């Protein structure tokens, strides 16, 4: 045994095969921002909360809804941060939960996160298709039936995303950063220009007025939270980030704040803009684009491009995160062993990506081909995805004090934060689920079924495959090369 104590440092990393410690801060940050997709969310999600389609004129106040959602998400980021500072996780909240609440709970957290990422990736591809087609229409393309074209756009986007992700995390992270920057820039400029031209008719009174009820506020918060989800996805890059204990905590702290500020501005703007728009625009699946299209089709086309780019980046970021969770599960033996393989040259979890991508592309294509309205499909996919994320957030934030206690670093603050945050999240989730069930919606049952399945699977593992359950919780451990070495050689 060497002086460094071999029992403390493992010789071979359990997540061997990924390109280790190469991503600088910007691509890590880009992973978070792209997965949140602020540009896309700014233009789609407020409109989903707003429209008469769901609530009529008694819809909740947009500013209040987004403010509350931001506060909830910032609390979650406070819970995740101490864990991100201590553990270079490759599978994000799944790893944290495994270390905090144990492997059985981790299965539920992992499945919830995978469910969330998958649903948001599907919704993103659907949004790419919808806005892609809208772009062609604004450019003057006449279409009797846009369904075939939408499906084609989705297929091409899915193939392109797959290629970028398999090719390497650096390439996909940098391309998402590029696309996200373009789309945020386009959206900001378009909104500013729109208001500069329509300044005279702007009426801010409605923005701050409270005319909703609390029932619609809860479901509104869940939908608004779905505009923030994905901010935690850099926690799946612990192995690949160059300085994981700096860049990941920083990215998950600042992304919700940045996105929240953008949303508050955008929500105000759209509240004003859509207030005076005709009901047909409000009820459409691309309201912002339609609104501007009535002024200038060219500007609308640019806007469509920006929004589609943002959603494309979001699809990539979601699947990047998802594939790394699956990769870890494969390595641990709680998912197919094959998904634990990495590409020999590109060093990405390529098998997981290639297995997941067809499913993610198939759902929106099927929805389009069967004639489901894109607006309705988007609302359902995003809300369902938000349930998955919320489920994983609850379990991961509840893990914080147990995680810290396990390594002997718990504090009073961690117990307060780790109990208050999951309670608030659970309350929001419960209130939203109640409202949704009363409205005859199946979303909460679908997520409930997924959660139940994960519990059953974990129970099965507990009794039949305890060895596999015990191997849960792998992460990018310290290696010999990370340690101090007294080298005599020059």
């Amino acid at each position, binding site marked *: 045994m060497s002086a460094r104590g071999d029992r403390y440092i493992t010789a071979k990393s359990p997540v061997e095969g990924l390109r280790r410690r190469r991503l600088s801060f910007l691509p890590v940050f880009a992973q978070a921002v792209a997965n949140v997709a602020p540009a896309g969310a700014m233009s789609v999600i407020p409109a989903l909360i707003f429209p008469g389609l769901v609530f009529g004129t008694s819809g909740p106040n947009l500013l209040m809804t987004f403010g509350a959602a931001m506060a909830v998400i910032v609390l979650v980021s406070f819970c995740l941060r101490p864990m991100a500072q201590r553990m270079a996780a490759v599978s994000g909240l799944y790893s944290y939960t495994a270390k905090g609440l144990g492997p059985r709970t981790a299965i539920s957290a992992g499945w919830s996160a995978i469910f969330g990422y998958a649903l948001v990736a599907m919704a993103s591809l659907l949004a790419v298709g919808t806005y892609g087609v809208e772009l062609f229409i604004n450019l003057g393309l006449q279409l009797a039936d846009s369904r075939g074209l939408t499906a084609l756009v989705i297929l091409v986007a899915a193939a392109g995303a797959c290629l970028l992700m398999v090719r390497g995390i650096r390439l996909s992270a940098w391309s998402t950063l590029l696309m996200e920057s373009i789309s945020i820039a386009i959206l900001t400029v378009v909104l500013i220009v729109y208001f500069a031209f329509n300044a005279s008719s702007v009426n801010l009174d409605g923005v701050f007025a409270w005319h909703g009820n609390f029932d619609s506020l809860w479901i509104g918060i869940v939908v608004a939270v779905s505009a923030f989800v994905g901010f935690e996805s850099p926690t799946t890059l612990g192995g690949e980030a160059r300085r994981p204990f700096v860049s990941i905590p920083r990215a998950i702290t600042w992304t919700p704040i940045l996105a929240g500020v953008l949303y508050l501005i955008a929500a105000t703007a759209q509240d004003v803009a859509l207030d005076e728009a005709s009901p047909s625009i409000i009820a459409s699946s691309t309201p912002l684009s339609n609104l501007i299209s009535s002024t200038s089709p060219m500007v609308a086309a640019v806007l469509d491009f920006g929004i589609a780019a943002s959603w494309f980046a979001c699809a990539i970021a979601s699947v990047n995160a998802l594939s790394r969770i699956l990769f870890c599960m494969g390595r641990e033996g709680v998912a197919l062993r094959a998904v634990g393989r990495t590409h020999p040259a590109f060093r990405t979890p390529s098998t997981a990506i290639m297995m997941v991508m067809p499913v993610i592309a198939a759902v929106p294509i099927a929805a389009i081909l069967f004639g489901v309205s894109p607006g309705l499909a988007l609302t359902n996919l995003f809300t369902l995805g938000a349930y998955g994320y919320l489920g994983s957030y609850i379990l991961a934030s509840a893990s914080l004090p147990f995680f810290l206690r396990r390594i002997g670093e718990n*504090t009073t603050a961690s117990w307060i934060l780790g109990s208050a945050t999951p309670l608030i999240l659970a309350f929001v989730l419960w209130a939203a689920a109640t409202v949704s069930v009363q409205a005859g919606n199946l979303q909460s049952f679908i997520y409930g079924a997924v959660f139940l399945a994960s519990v059953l699977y974990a129970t099965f593992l507990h009794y039949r495959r305890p060895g596999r359950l015990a191997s849960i919780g792998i992460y990018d451990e310290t290696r010999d090369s990370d*340690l101090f070495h007294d080298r005599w050689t020059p």
Partner: protein
Amino acid sequence: MNYRPSYAGTGPAATSLRILEVVARFGTGTTAKEITEALQIPQATAYRALNALVADEYLARTSNLRGFALGHAITGLITAAAPPAVSTAARNVMERFRSGNRFAVHLIMYRNASLRIADEDPDYPLHAAFEMLRYPHASAAGKLMLAELGDSSGSVPMRPLSKLTEYTITDRSQLEAVLAEVRATKQASDVNELEEGSASLAFPITMPDGNLGAALCLFGPSARFPTICEQQEAARELTMRMAPLLF
């Protein structure tokens, strides 16, 4: 484990350094609790400092995340600050060689791409000790090290090569040619390059694994460089005897 630091600083920098000292003393696997107890500092302060040290890789967490070990970022500081240890047997061999020699004989050791003066000739102290450690391209011992490092390692400073005298090699390609020659002949020389009027000849002392570990340096007036070169055979024989005493 009872440990009280001799000097108790209170600033954040002092806290960080004292934590590093505790981890170095207690060894790999030292926990946050042991550190707060040893240093008598508040938990929150310790956790903040520990997280910052881990973030910058001065410390690394062990596999169970509870314990700490010194990280690779501290390597430079420790090896640069710690003086190399030379055994009495090695010093005696050096002493005997010096008594039969009219030139200055120094023992230089290499650690982490830097030169350390391990045993200085008491009769002829090094005039340009600082320059020698600072500008390896100008001295014989420094050239031995640069030749061993090769150009791929990135340890050769990329900044312009300083001109200490008018003979110092400041041209990169010229230096590369000289280093290639050093690799071939397994010895390096400098005439007037480090200091006007002085010359030196350096011979490698290799470690058991064949890597360069130290150098034997003969110093003398540059006018007498040919005479220094006559000592080659004896010096090489000395390096063979020194190697097992040093490594």
